[in-house]
């Protein structure tokens, strides 16, 4: 296997981008990554997108986007793993290069979510759960995570305040990210008193509906070294990918995320690193409870202590393990297919020392965790600056 490095990143402002279409958003972002890498031609492209068919009525976006990106004839395709589609695109790009098939691959992600009504978006997102045995009965994504939150609270005594702590911290970070959809701060009371979406989760426990795209360019280390100008090289040194039962009721426990635990173990093993080695992390905080559970499953704190760990500011910038310096899905936004790629961009920036106001001092090793459905897909990347 060849070593793989990130040589370019691109991301534009996320939010309700009324004036731009899916292809416009993607092409602008992808072109930024191409320019950042200082290249012209790609060997191939993987695009993560959860449901362009339901959101904008467009499938077959691999060919569409390659064409509009001026990369006609390259091998390009869409990969899908619900909200982990972006992470999967990065993994596919990595594998393509590592095995020697290609040298320069673009891994992108895109979702255009505001071309449907709110209940239409809820419907589209719910297709990532078991359609016949969960969604049929009225389950929604916030609802499924709410049921996990209730179990976590029941089994470990996790408090309402601890859930809010995740949102408060991520919005604090996001307020320093000019690309974030909601770059404002929130208070614990603000989270707790906001509109209920699925008890116990309020709207400020939930990531928003977002239009957005993100792209990274990956290359084999040799090519990367040739292209690297002044940019420090960031290598992907560990990948872990795992799945679990898609329906919550099929899992023995609801207070954990087994696929994330397994994916983490695989990524740690491949990279030879441990949680203690990681300086900065981006987690899939689609809901506040998710960040708490991921902290536990990836070994950053004891099982059941994620809430306490967060409330004690261990995951703040300057804490033991800064989590979601970008603002996370909560504040930065969650255009589902783009999220996994944006996480890799944030860690790349942190490891390059380009974190700006939210830079984690001396960050050498970073981790991303991207999750699909209620955690039935989980992809962990570990990255290191060379």
């Amino acid at each position, binding site marked *: 296997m060849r070593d793989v490095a990130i040589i370019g990143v691109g991301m534009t402002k996320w939010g309700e981008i009324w004036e731009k279409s899916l292809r416009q958003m993607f092409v602008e972002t992808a072109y930024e990554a191409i320019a950042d890498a200082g290249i012209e031609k790609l060997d191939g492209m993987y695009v993560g997108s959860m449901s362009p068919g339901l959101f904008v009525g467009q499938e077959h976006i691999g060919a569409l986007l390659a064409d509009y990106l001026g990369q006609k004839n390259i091998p390009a395709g869409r990969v899908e793993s619900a909200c982990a589609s972006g992470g999967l695109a990065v993994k596919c790009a990595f594998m393509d290069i590592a095995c020697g098939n290609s040298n320069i691959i673009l891994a992108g992600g895109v979702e255009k979510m505001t071309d449907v009504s709110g209940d239409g978006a*809820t419907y589209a997102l719910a297709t990532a759960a078991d359609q016949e045995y969960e969604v049929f009965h009225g389950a929604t994504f916030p609802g499924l995570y709410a049921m996990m939150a209730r179990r976590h609270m029941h089994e470990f005594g996790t408090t309402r305040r601890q859930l809010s702590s995740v949102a408060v911290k991520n919005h604090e970070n996001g307020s320093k990210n000019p690309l974030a959809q909601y770059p404002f701060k929130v208070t614990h009371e603000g989270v707790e008193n906001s509109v209920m979406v699925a008890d116990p989760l309020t709207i400020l426990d939930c990531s928003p509906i977002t239009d957005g795209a993100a792209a990274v360019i990956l290359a084999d280390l040799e090519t990367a070294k040739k292209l690297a100008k002044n940019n420090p090289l960031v290598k992907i040194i560990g990948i872990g990918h795992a799945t679990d039962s898609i329906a919550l009721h099929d899992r023995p426990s609801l207070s954990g995320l087994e696929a994330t635990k397994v994916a983490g173990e695989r990524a740690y093993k491949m990279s030879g690193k441990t949680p203690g080695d990681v300086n900065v992390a981006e987690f899939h905080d689609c809901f506040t409870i998710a960040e708490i559970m991921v902290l536990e499953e990836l070994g950053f704190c004891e099982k059941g202590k994620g809430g306490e760990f967060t409330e004690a500011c261990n995951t703040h910038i300057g804490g033991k393990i800064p989590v979601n310096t970008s603002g996370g899905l909560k504040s930065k936004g969650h255009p589902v297919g783009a999220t996994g790629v944006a996480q890799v961009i944030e860690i790349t920036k942190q490891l390059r020392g380009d974190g700006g106001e939210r830079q984690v001092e001396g960050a050498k090793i970073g981790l991303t965790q991207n999750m699909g459905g209620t955690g039935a897909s989980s992809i962990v990347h570990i990255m290191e600056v060379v």
Partner: protein
Amino acid sequence: MFPARIWREFPQRYRLEAVKNKDTGEVYFPPRYVSKDGKKFNGEKYILPDEGKIFTYTVIEVPPSQFKDEAPYVVCIVELTDGTKLTCQITDFDKDWLDIGKKVRLEFRRVQTDAHHGVLSYGYKAVPAE
């Protein structure tokens, strides 16, 4: 909703038909064709018990399009008396009663109506049993 999609699920939704793996004693609902560890198994039809308790629940305030008129409604995971878990709505309850561990029974109810013109979808919902 296209009728074939709900029709093929009737044995499960109407009669709680599951499959029991005779080799391991595991119960699969809905039925599986390969065991959870990827093996062919000797299966037999098994009807789930219709009683259990609330394992976890939530109140859905923001529904998907097909449940627009139903919200707020409660979705839960029931742990049946044989240990099998399934997801469904809870209906006919008092707000104060709702809690993890409460005993419920599965009843036959309308689950989706597909507006005023589509095919009606029936299935199980949990009701208080205490």
